[in-house]
């Protein structure tokens, strides 16, 4: 077990060694970055292949394409008939999946550790030969699947179109976060085979990817096999991608009202915030915990516990590469005017912006966040993804210890300053969804 993840003194007890995620790394001549995390706890190997492309890189009239493309990566390649990769991985006790966000597309394969070479063979085959067997039928099939994913996760969900409305209003039309990763139906329908080839050729190149192999493996053997299956793939041009300017700030509250086929109203307050791994991120995350994470949070205490005018509350900060978002979501009790919720949420923000939370409240928020952070790292796969994220987004694979340290260092005055600076009413999008007819989307 080479994972040296030692918790230091945040909660109680003396400081131990600095925490870190142990890894070895190398880079192939074609630019592919490779990390190996050795962990022999269980005879399993995890592969994470991270491409630096997401929905922010999509072009006009093709929203949703990065995610649709992700689906196509599972439809076979030169020597892998459609479905064979899943059959091989499942027979190896594993599975295959991926996710796409505004910034990234991340593939994950899992198998018994003695299938490492087979796993790399499959990955190489689809990275080199995806287009060799690609055709219209595969595109049509996965477009249908994605349209069903959209129905299941958005259209047929209560309040399901809220995220679309928030992003549309929070970011201007010419910014990469204006649209959601799932995309618009018309754009998904317009996607064509030449789009697939162009996207693959531009973004699915070794110099735009990071590979992490984690689990019951030996770094030397990983290096030998990764070299065998990937080193001969040519380096490509650095992908030319859309560039976005920082949009002018929101200076007047944007109020959006919508309806859905739901029983009770829900309000969403959203603000732009700094990007991931910038200085104010830990204070914003602590602020979210204090305001609206769990039963000990201020909004829960006031709106759910004391006044009983809300069913649930949630506050969260989400940092991405271009910028971040701070969200507060509160579901109303039946018969409660959502305007009252909005007013009282505003009062709680004002309180925090005026008076720093005391050290006990800050300590609770930090401890609780730290514990869930550590717990999430129990999974080898989560560690692999986090390591890639540190390397790609923080430019520092050893960021783990620094990340913990900066989260622990947050003070009450910093939380107050973050509330005052970022959660201004004049800078927010205020969305209310009331019971009524399910509203139609507007592009």
């Amino acid at each position, binding site marked *: 077990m080479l994972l040296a993840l030692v918790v230091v003194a945040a909660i109680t007890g003396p400081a131990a060694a600095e925490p870190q995620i142990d890894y070895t790394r190398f880079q192939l001549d074609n630019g592919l970055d490779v990390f190996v995390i050795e962990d022999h706890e269980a005879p399993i190997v995890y592969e994470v292949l991270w491409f630096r492309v997401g929905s922010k890189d999509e072009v006009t009239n093709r929203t949703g394409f990065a995610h649709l493309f992700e689906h196509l990566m599972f439809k076979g390649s030169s*020597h892998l008939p459609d479905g064979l990769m899943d059959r*091989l991985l499942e*027979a190896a*006790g594993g599975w295959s999946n991926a996710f796409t966000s505004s910034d990234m597309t991340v593939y994950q394969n899992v198998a018994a550790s003695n299938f490492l070479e*087979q796993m790399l063979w499959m990955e190489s085959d689809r990275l080199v030969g995806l287009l060799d067997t690609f055709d219209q039928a595969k595109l049509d099939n996965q477009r249908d699947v994605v349209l*069903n994913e959209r129905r299941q996760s958005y259209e047929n969900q209560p309040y399901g179109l809220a995220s679309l409305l928030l992003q549309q209003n929070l970011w201007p039309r010419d910014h990469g976060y204006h649209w959601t990763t799932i995309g618009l139906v018309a754009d998904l329908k317009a996607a064509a085979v030449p789009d697939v080839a162009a996207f693959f050729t531009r973004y699915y190149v070794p110099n735009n990817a990071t590979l992490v192999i984690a689990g019951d493996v030996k770094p030397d053997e990983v290096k030998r096999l990764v070299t065998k299956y990937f080193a001969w793939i040519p380096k490509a041009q650095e992908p030319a991608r859309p560039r976005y300017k920082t949009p002018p700030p929101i200076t007047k509250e944007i109020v959006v009202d919508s309806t859905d086929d739901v*029983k009770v109203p829900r309000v969403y307050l959203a603000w732009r915030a700094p990007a991931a791994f910038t200085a104010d991120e830990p204070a914003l995350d602590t602020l979210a915990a204090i305001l609206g994470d769990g039963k*000990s949070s201020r909004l829960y205490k006031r709106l759910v516990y004391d006044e009983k005018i809300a069913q649930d509350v949630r506050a969260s900060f989400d940092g991405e590469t271009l910028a971040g978002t701070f969200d507060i979501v509160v579901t109303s009790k039946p018969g409660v005017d959502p305007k009252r919720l909005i007013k009282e949420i505003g009062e709680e923000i004002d309180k925090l912006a005026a008076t720093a939370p005391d050290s006990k409240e800050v300590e609770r928020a930090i*401890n609780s966040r730290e514990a869930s952070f550590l717990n999430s790292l129990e999974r080898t796969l989560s560690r692999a993804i986090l390591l890639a994220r540190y390397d790609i987004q923080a430019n520092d694979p050893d960021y783990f210890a620094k990340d913990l340290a900066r989260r622990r260092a947050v003070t009450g005055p910093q939380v107050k300053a973050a509330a005052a600076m970022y959660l201004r009413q004049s800078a927010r999008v205020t969305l209310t969804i009331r019971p009524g007819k399910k509203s139609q989307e507007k592009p």
Partner: protein
Amino acid sequence: MTRALSILLVLCLATPAVAENPLFGKSGISDWTKPPPPTREPTFRPPVAKRMKLANGIALLVIENHTLPIVSMTLYVPGAGAASDPTGKGGLAAYTADLLDEGAGGLSAIAIAEEQDRLGASIGVGIDTDSAQVSASTLSKTLDATLALVTKLVKQPAFADEEAERVKGDRRTSLEQRRDRPREVATIVLNGALFGPRSPYGHPGSGVREELETITVADAREFYRQRYNPATMTLVVAGDVDPAALRKQLDTGLGAWKVTGARRAAKPDAKPAKPPARLLLVDRKGAAQSDVRIGLVGPDRKDPRYFQFEVFRTVLGDGFTSRLMQRLREQLGITYGASAVMSWRVAPGPFVIATAIQTPSTATGVQEIIRMVDELAATDVPAAELDKAKLNMIRALPAQFDTNASTVAAYVDLVQHGLPDDYYAPRAACPSGCYVAAVRRVTAKDVKAIGKQIVPSPRLVISIVGDLEKIGPELAKLSLGEPAMFDLYGMPLAK
């Protein structure tokens, strides 16, 4: 077996007839066409549990894992689940469990939440049909304080009137919101039809609006008194913990908790009922998809055909390569996902095929599902497909012990079903473990027999929440008989 699927399987290791991409020539690998074989099969020994007994009868299972300074645990309380709800008071078990962390041992609900944050602990209380479970994850440094808090919750819950009223208010709103959750409604309607709508396994564990107001805090207190019996509980702890020290601490805490008048959990009186119809429908106007639940009462966990059934279920609907996923998603493109789930319970539980199908294809999807079930009862599963399912069940075993929490869950599952603690471990009779040996023994004939004996398609009951104006006419052509109708909350509508 559909032609398309047979072809896929035959093609498994064949090379497609396309011109070779010249880039592969640069790899220096002479034969790209065959997957490289695996190296030697690794050995896997599941983590071993140390079993002890506390003075008051609580069984203690400890699994040491010192790789990270964290601990997970579950206190398993048999007989405190939804199946023990008194008739007409559906949701009482859930309400009782909900109240445990809403004030206990002199701490208010908020103080309990704050203490968890301070400790870096997270405590959750929940129920399933057959049990209640109090679970916690924490840092090993604060384990003692976390255990003390857990002990307060289960030993000294306050059941204060004011907190109980507030929690009831939250439950009331959640039940009002049920109409917004069509998947839940489709499941409720199906379970009601399979077991009887007010029966132990047939009523929703979260309760129904019509019965909520009859439930009082006194009911919760009495449910707690009768059903939270330390003599029948098991505490499973995994992580960075010293068994002897833990035992010592528990002796003065949880182990010193004595009660009188509590019951022993009895097997729930859960029997299959006569469904009101084969087709159960809920009209949800404007639904973009139909939420579909198709099921029947399956076997119980003690059934000797357990392994055969699990292989059958894996082939049909577990994983991406299952027949349901391949046909409904990868070939027809009419869904995002489909699966077959068996709830293994103390008494026979539901076997359910679950999916959400785009509205215009609803009848097609239902017809396909029935056809796939029939096919499994009529035709041997091809060898490659059978092997894939069995190997998956065997080789995925280590992942069950991936985290402390999942290790705890695996052991709670053994306890719940009265299986030995070393169930997955190698033994003289079966060196790679008796679980592995039992999976290996399953044959294509066995799987076919499951289809015939346990899952004959005419027994399947079909519950659908969708836009009836759009899906009704096509569904009517499936000859499923006169449907029974339910409202958006899953309650029967008068004919």
